[in-house]
């Protein structure tokens, strides 16, 4: 059965680009536009992985990671951050919040695919 990935980014173009790359690699994709939307979408769904941006309105990537790790059912869901941010400080913050990994935009399809497969096994 295909693995399901929730992508979270406030740019429609970015979501389209990511979806195309993930579908090509055989994943199922559903999308959210920020952290608040992601939590709502997660309420009915069981993704195998979340890929999230950092800078988003209403609830950013840090907020989403924290909300997911703070308990309930999703605390072990792998979360990859995909962001233009490159600072060590932000990376450390994501790691401390419980992120599984950090990918710098623009993503490389092959590197992204390899990272996802590593995390899912």
């Amino acid at each position, binding site marked *: 059965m295909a693995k399901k990935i929730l992508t979270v980014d*406030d*740019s*429609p*173009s*970015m979501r*389209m*680009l990511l979806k*195309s*790359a993930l579908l090509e690699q055989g994943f199922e994709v559903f999308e959210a536009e920020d952290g608040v939307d992601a939590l709502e979408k997660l309420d009915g769904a069981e993704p195998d992985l979340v890929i999230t941006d950092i*800078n988003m*309105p209403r609830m950013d990537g840090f907020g989403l990671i924290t909300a997911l790790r703070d308990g309930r059912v999703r605390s072990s869901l792998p979360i990859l951050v995909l962001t*233009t941010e*490159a600072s060590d400080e932000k*990376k450390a913050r994501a*790691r401390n919040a419980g*992120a*599984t*990994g*950090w*990918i*710098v*935009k*623009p*993503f*490389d*399809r092959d*590197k*992204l695919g*390899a*990272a996802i497969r*590593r*995390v899912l096994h």
Partner: protein
Amino acid sequence: MSLLSSIQPDQMRRVTIAQGDSVASRDLDLIYTTVLGSCVAVCLHDSAARVGGINHFLLADPAPINGESGQLLNRYGIHAMELLINEMIKRGAARERLRARVYGGGSMRQGLGDIGTQNIAFARRFLANEGIPILGEDVGGTSARRVEFMPAYGRARCKSIQGMVAEQQPVPVSAPCGDVELF
């Protein structure tokens, strides 16, 4: 109160931007300026937050849309636009208030494919996807252009210029590219 009435053009500070740049500012005394051949510059403005920004990019000539080159166009172009939007948002802009102006994309040399037109098409497609209205354009043709943009006011001026523009190579917008770190 009109901010424009207090502008003293000879007291404005000019900052030249180059291919690969994505910058934004709220400074009232600032004019961004750039020269475009085949490259495209997108100017964004949020009038409520009084923030403006500009980028300048030349994306590689894509092969058919479904081919890898088509994806390269999207990936680096989206990145160039996202960098600009991020700079705007850091200074108080909101996505839903952004308005755009598009410049450049001229055909500078015969026989090299219509890279300028494809860059214009990318800019328009991206802005449409993002729901960002385009208030004005000065694109295409065979002349180089000089663009001047006042980011705080959102005012832009674009003039054709004579003579050759040193055409730069299409380059990816920035490195690092896709580096992955698993914690």
